[in-house]
């Protein structure tokens, strides 16, 4: 029926040869021995995709050894051969129909190989799920269905195999179809077709024989050709997870490029954009690329780089979106569906790493709602850990806020993996933002205060001795705007007035306490240490003045919490990175250093951190 084309017509467009036959990744899954290898062997043979003479050779070898020929042997034979370079193997087979090129990913049916099945299936656009008509639905028929649903594979064909063993009975077929349809509907999957086949006899694989005249639907091959190539999600809101920020200054390149792969939507030069979770805003100044004509827009699927009109401090892991489109969510609490593949069970009170989009954040398991036995689709409550191959609904808590979407809204930024012991040990999708907000930093501070050992000299005693109220004063704003000059002058003014004050320059802490933090990606740790250091100073009764460039809202929250029980005051200098509501004092960058320092000092007096008669 299908002939491999001798020669494709070659189209030329520009200088590029455009014989770009569509390619599609298909994963073949099913319980062990339900006939995956046989089906793949048949597909290759019946579409004439095997190397010349291979079929005859394997048949002859079987005859010689008085063994019945199996189509599955073809794969083994090819496996030997491909070691010498022919492009077919058991893990991936390449074949071609009239319509397109296929890569068949053979996913092992044994449960021990579930992680290989997941890796294979995650690359697939569609799946063929095999069920043995004779044996019926087995554990992995269900488990695999469940995983497909979670991996986001929506195009599925179910092949009911070994129909020859049940006398090609329509009743048996109907029964399997009904039972499995019911199961699939519970997990929100609708199979495109149920196809009765005999892989061994090649019935309804690529060719149609007479045994099942009662069946009028497509063959496997026709069903594969019916699968749709999924269009790039260009019509959804823009989601560009920031992978990195480049500046190749040493190569005399002054561009500061925000790089990443667009997951959904599109972006244009001039678009107003926002980054979550930092909530910083800017405008796209240019789209950068190497060896291409100048671009003014980019869309889903492309790995791009943009420069911004305003230089704001953002970090890898943030999501860039358009101000005129719906925003992603940001939270430290995620309600998720998880499948766990790790050797060790997932437990409470252990630190894991969450990778969602391009963010990498420490995370803890906070709550297990239900654990689902994927094979039976029954649920267990009151579990204290999640075991290998479990599917669980649970709540995770991250060390700092992450940006994400719900899986039902934008699948690409609504899924994640978890790292345990350096390896991907689980994956899942975000169902919701959990509501009961627990703040890890606050919890830590509570514990710290409870266990802090002191003499009889309290912080309060210290403060009244020197007649001031201790506080942390943060001067924030864009880099290079003169924050430290103001901070230094303020320190002088207060010192001259007899106050106990200390200016902590960023440079100094990097030289000392933070000298092990080389990479700018370690900013979170820098913030944490600044918070803990502030706590020591303010506990000692001092007024501490620190400068932080481009402070993000959640960073401010961390600093404030860590500095408790003392207060934290924020002075914004010429910046719009923090919303006005968070600032205790807003200063224009045009103000002189003298005037700015005086205004901060006045504020400290007004708020009674300093006695009124200080100056």
């Amino acid at each position, binding site marked *: 029926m299908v002939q491999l084309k001798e020669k494709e017509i070659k189209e030329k467009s520009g200088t590029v*040869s455009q014989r770009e036959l569509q390619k599609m990744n298909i994963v073949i899954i099913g319980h062990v021995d339900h006939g995956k290898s046989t089906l793949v062997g048949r597909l290759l043979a019946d579409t004439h995709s095997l190397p010349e003479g291979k079929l005859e050779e394997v048949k002859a070898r079987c005859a010689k050894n008085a063994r019945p020929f199996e189509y599955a042997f073809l794969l083994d034979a090819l496996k030997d051969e491909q*070691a010498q370079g022919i492009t077919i193997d058991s893990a991936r087979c390449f074949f071609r129909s009239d319509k397109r090129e296929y890569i068949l990913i053979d996913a092992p049916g044994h449960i021990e190989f579930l992680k290989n099945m997941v890796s294979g299936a995650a690359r697939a656009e569609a799946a063929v799920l095999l069920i043995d008509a004779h044996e019926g639905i087995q554990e992995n028929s269900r488990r695999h269905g469940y995983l497909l649903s979670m991996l986001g594979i929506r195009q599925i064909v179910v092949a009911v195999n070994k129909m020859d063993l049940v006398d090609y009975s329509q009743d048996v077929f109907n029964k399997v179809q009904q039972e499995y349809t019911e199961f699939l509907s519970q997990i929100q999957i609708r199979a495109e077709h149920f196809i009765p086949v005999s892989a061994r006899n090649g019935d309804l694989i690529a060719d149609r024989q007479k045994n099942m005249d009662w069946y009028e639907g497509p063959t496997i091959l026709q069903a594969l050709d019916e699968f749709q190539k999924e269009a790039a999600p260009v019509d959804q809101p823009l989601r560009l997870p920031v992978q990195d920020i480049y500046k190749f200054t040493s190569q005399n390149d002054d561009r500061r490029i925000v*790089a990443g792969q667009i997951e959904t939507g599109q972006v244009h030069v001039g678009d107003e954009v926002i980054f979550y979770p930092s909530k910083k805003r800017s405008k796209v100044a240019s789209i950068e690329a190497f*060896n291409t004509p100048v671009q003014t827009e980019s869309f889903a699927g492309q790995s791009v780089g943009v420069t911004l009109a305003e230089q704001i401090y953002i970090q890898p892991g943030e999501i860039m979106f358009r101000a005129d489109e719906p925003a992603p969510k940001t939270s430290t609490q995620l309600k998720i569906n998880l499948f766990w593949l790790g050797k060790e069970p997932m437990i409470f009170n252990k630190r894991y790493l969450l990778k969602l989009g391009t963010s990498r954040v420490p995370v803890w398991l906070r709550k297990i709602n239900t654990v689902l036995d994927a094979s039976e689709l029954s649920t267990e409550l009151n579990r204290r850990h999640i075991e290998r191959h479990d599917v669980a609904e649970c709540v995770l808590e991250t060390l700092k806020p992450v940006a994400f979407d719900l899986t039902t809204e934008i699948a690409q930024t609504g899924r994640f993996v978890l790292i345990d012991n350096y390896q991907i040990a689980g994956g899942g999708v975000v169902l919701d933002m959990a509501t009961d907000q627990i703040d890890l930093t606050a919890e830590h501070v509570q514990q710290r205060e409870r266990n802090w050992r002191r003499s009889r000299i309290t912080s309060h005693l210290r403060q009244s001795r020197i007649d001031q109220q201790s506080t942390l004063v943060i001067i924030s704003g864009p880099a290079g705007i003169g924050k430290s000059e103001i901070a230094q002058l303020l320190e002088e003014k207060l010192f001259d007035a007899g106050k106990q004050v200390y200016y902590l320059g960023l440079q100094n802490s990097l030289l000392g306490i933070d000298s092990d933090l080389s990479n700018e990606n370690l900013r979170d740790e820098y913030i944490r240490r600044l918070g803990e250091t502030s706590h020591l100073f303010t506990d000692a009764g001092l007024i501490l003045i620190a400068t932080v460039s481009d402070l993000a809202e959640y960073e401010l929250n961390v600093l404030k919490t860590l500095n408790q029980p003392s207060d934290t005051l924020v002075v914004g200098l010429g910046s719009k990175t923090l919303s006005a509501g968070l600032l205790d004092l807003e200063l224009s960058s045009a103000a002189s250093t003298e005037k700015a320092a005086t205004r901060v000092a006045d504020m400290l007096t007004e708020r009674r951190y300093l006695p009124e008669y200080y100056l």
Partner: protein
Amino acid sequence: MTQTMTQLDALEAQSVYILREAYRSFKDLVMLWSIGKDSTVLLWLARKAFFGHVPIPLMHIDTNFKIPAMIEYRDRFAKEWKLNMIVGQNVEALKNKQTFPDGGLDRIGCCKKLKSEALKHTLSGEWPRRVLNHQTCEYDIQENGQAFTGVIVGARADEEGSRSKERYFSPRDRQNDWDIAEQPPEMWNQFNTDFAPGTHIRIHPLLDWTELNIWQYIERENIPIIDLYFDKGDGKRYRSLGCAPCTGQVDSTAKNVSEIIAELESGRFANIAERSGRQQDAEDGGGLETLRRDGYM
């Protein structure tokens, strides 16, 4: 502007993503450059990923038996593209004539010495490296270099068997071993970028490319590829590049990139292994897995 991506666009975007992921995750990252078409495409993709720059050092294992044009080509582009070029060699074995051309070893044994061992010890920094000095245009000797924990390699899944079981980010343990059955999963765009102390990771940005894709991309991007791949009038050309004594040519009159593409599309080579010109493959009965386990790809 049409908002659809061609197959080459999609492959490029994915490879660029992987390269950026690698660059972000590994402080001690290196890219192997064999001068052949695949790793040269990889190098080009790095220039794409980093907007014309190559912030990752490149390593070439020079067996001393490479076709001389390869070394000229390497040095020309290392200078032109300002590459941080590192060259490694098994000086000891060459001195002691423990090689196939010198009659000291069989082909596979020679590959082991001059490629596997040289690669392993140059990566770890135990053996001296030669590093291109862009001021003097000479190679300086560097002792005690840092060990590389992330190694970017231009392997493709369609090349031969064992490679099709690779992941994009494939952990290797202390012994350089590769435990195929116990590989951690990879899903969506999430890879295993974390690694335990003492282990390292092989990164394969070209895993999904085919030989045809490589040539199509070379044509589209106009990548300056070494001319050993082209017939220069005698009806022969290299399809795969290696050491002079062990690499044969194929019969072909393809004189430029588009003729190679036409040749591949015609199916002329459909049933002939790409590396069929490589003698050592034949000698090993086809199993390159031994060499791979030893660390030579």
